[in-house]
């Protein structure tokens, strides 16, 4: 029996500021080691879903539940969820002036280790992993001497997100349109990194518009999210159908 890592039941969520309902009773289960893809038209709620899982407070959860590793996720703060093993690769990563990527990633890794009762990594130990991963995802080390994400191109920002994922080794990685704005090389690098990280325990939830990334990363399940609900689920064939016919056939 495979363990469920994420269980979402009848989730309703709205924009805090306006009260506009975005997710209208969404349910989804992801088991350890599985890769799920969510596709759907703009405004359907894809980004909202991953942000609600990560705990962003510009969204209000009105009803329903989210369990992560059998724990109630909705009671946890953003950082608790992160330390618990949820990683969100942002669609638009923030630029943070004056903060060096190295300093930032070290703080994040240490925070997680501390929460797990592990000791902080020494600078030497950390640097070794850090440098290896940079090489792996092919980020020019000079870039990482700048402030976090400042002056990074769109593609560089996305690579940096995947790099952080490699550093933090999450249990569940949420990839929010990581493929958009990437050239072929970057797309391949992201795909390779994800494939390399896949194992029997780690799960992925990939939000995307296109088939492109899915040429590299083969999903176990594909869901179509329209108007706040998952209207159809299936396997990779569903991607082909969408690519050919669009979303029209899924509307009620």
């Amino acid at each position, binding site marked *: 029996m495979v363990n469920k890592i994420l269980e979402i039941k009848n989730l309703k969520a709205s924009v805090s500021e306006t009260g506009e309902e975005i997710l209208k009773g969404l349910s989804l289960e992801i088991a350890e080691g599985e890769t799920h893809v969510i596709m759907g038209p703009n405004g359907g709620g894809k980004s909202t879903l991953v942000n609600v899982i*990560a*705990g*962003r*407070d*510009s969204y209000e959860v009105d009803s329903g539940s989210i369990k992560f590793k059998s724990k109630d996720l909705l009671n946890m*703060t*953003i*950082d608790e*969820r*992160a*330390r618990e093993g*949820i*990683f*969100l690769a*942002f669609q*638009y*990563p*923030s630029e*943070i*002036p*004056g*903060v060096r990527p190295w*300093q*930032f*990633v070290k*703080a*994040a890794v240490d*925070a*997680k280790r501390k*929460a797990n009762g592990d000791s902080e990594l020494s600078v030497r130990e950390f640097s070794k992993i850090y440098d290896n991963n940079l090489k792996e995802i092919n980020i020019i080390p000079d870039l990482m001497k700048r*402030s*976090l994400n400042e002056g990074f191109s769109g593609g560089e920002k996305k690579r940096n997100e995947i790099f*952080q994922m490699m550093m*933090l080794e999450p249990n569940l990685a949420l990839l929010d349109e990581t493929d958009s704005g990437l050239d072929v090389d970057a797309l391949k690098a992201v795909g390779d990194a994800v494939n390399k990280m896949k194992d029997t325990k780690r799960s992925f939830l990939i939000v995307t518009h296109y088939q492109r990334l899915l040429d590299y990363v083969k999903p176990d399940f594909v869901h179509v999210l329209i108007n706040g609900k998952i209207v159809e689920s299936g396997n990779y064939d569903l991607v082909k159908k969408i690519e050919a016919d669009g979303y029209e056939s899924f509307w009620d």
Partner: protein
Amino acid sequence: MVSDNNSISRKTKLEDKDYKWGFTTDVETEVAPKGLNEEIVKMISKKKSEPKWLLDWRLKAYNHWLSQDEKEGEPEWAMVDYPPIDYQDIHYYAAPNSSDSPKSLDEVDPEMLEAFEKLGIPLEERAQLAGVAVDAVFDSVSVATTYEKQLKELGIIFCPLSEAIKNHPDLVKKYLGSVVPYSDNYFANLNSAVFSEGSFIYVPPGVRCPIELMTYFRINTADTGQFERTLIVADKDSYVSYLEGCTAPIRKNSQLHAAVVELVALENAEIKYSTLQNWYPGTKEGVGGVYNFVTKRGKCLGKGSKISWTQVETGSAITWKYPSVILQGDNSVGEFYSVALTNNRQQADTGTKMIHIGKNTRSNVVAKGISAGEGNNTYRGQIKVLPSAENAQNFTQCDSLLIGDKCGAHTVPYIEVKNPSAKLEHEASTSKVSDDQLFYLMQRGLNEEEAHHMIITGWSKEVFKELPFEFAVEAGQLLKVSLEGAVG
């Protein structure tokens, strides 16, 4: 305990009170009666065995202050609010270890002790910092002596101002009041009349001072006096870097602190002046705390000279302070880098003045204000380009961060240009810590306070990088401690 081998502290010579105060032992118990009048001014001058010209200067200052006090009183334009100061209720002359100092650590504000703990200040230093009246001898004295020898060989003079008045009267007479005249402003006038002590530095031509000079090195002695006066002169082609302050919260017995700092840079000389100010800000409810009304000004007298101010201001109940540069020599450069933080009920009205007189003069201003709690933080800056200042250039950037909805952040720049070849740019922004940035950091596992701290330290980096390295690290830590409780 002297971890910084490049530093020297003259004020660590605690055991040598004669040296420090310039006269003998009965000082221990001596306090002038409250109030200010000509007799008090004369008494201060006499106690310090000053020459007549200095007494005359003090008296002129006193009379000017008096007439100003009658005419218009204290300056009112700053955005600070405090109960009226009774200038007749202050001791203008007091012995260093005055009787209201705490007798032991038990009498010290527990919050202050907690702050020492957080800043990692060694146990043996805490009592000193808190102003507990104890005699102490520090390891650093021997280190200080070593450096004094080195400075002497280079011809650098670094001594208390009162000593300089005795031993280098020509230098003092030439430059004292040459940048901040006795009639400059209300608080500076008061200082000129009654200043008690301060530092004097002279760097001879062509000499590059090899060490960072500091007044306080971790240890503040007993109250240096409310009316410090510092004078630094860098002769042709010389360089000196001076540090003032300390990350530890400094207890001041007196509430009013009206200091004057004058810097003079001759041809191609450079002076770098850094301050960490963390004086007692009062309680969270706004009771007590230091009123820091300070006049700091440098004059780039010679061609190609440079004066750079860097300040990290986290203390005091009220800060009224505008370190300025008069750019008189052609091609001279003035810089101002500042982080000012107000939390709880603190108020700060601080900024700079850059007065462009010479040709091709340049100035650069980076001011960061952080307002938290119920604090009010004002940047007030003046950039003035006189008709003679061909091709003057200034760039000013001032940014404010608001933390919480009970604080205030204000920006009041004055840009006055009388020469068409000048080029000036001023940019400013005010916002809170971005939700997006916070979410991003917290999604990586940092808690709210850590995330805030990382963002704020990063945001302040442009200023911190101007500080000597050890100071920069401490400054970051200081911000963290000062902001505690403001977030979340």
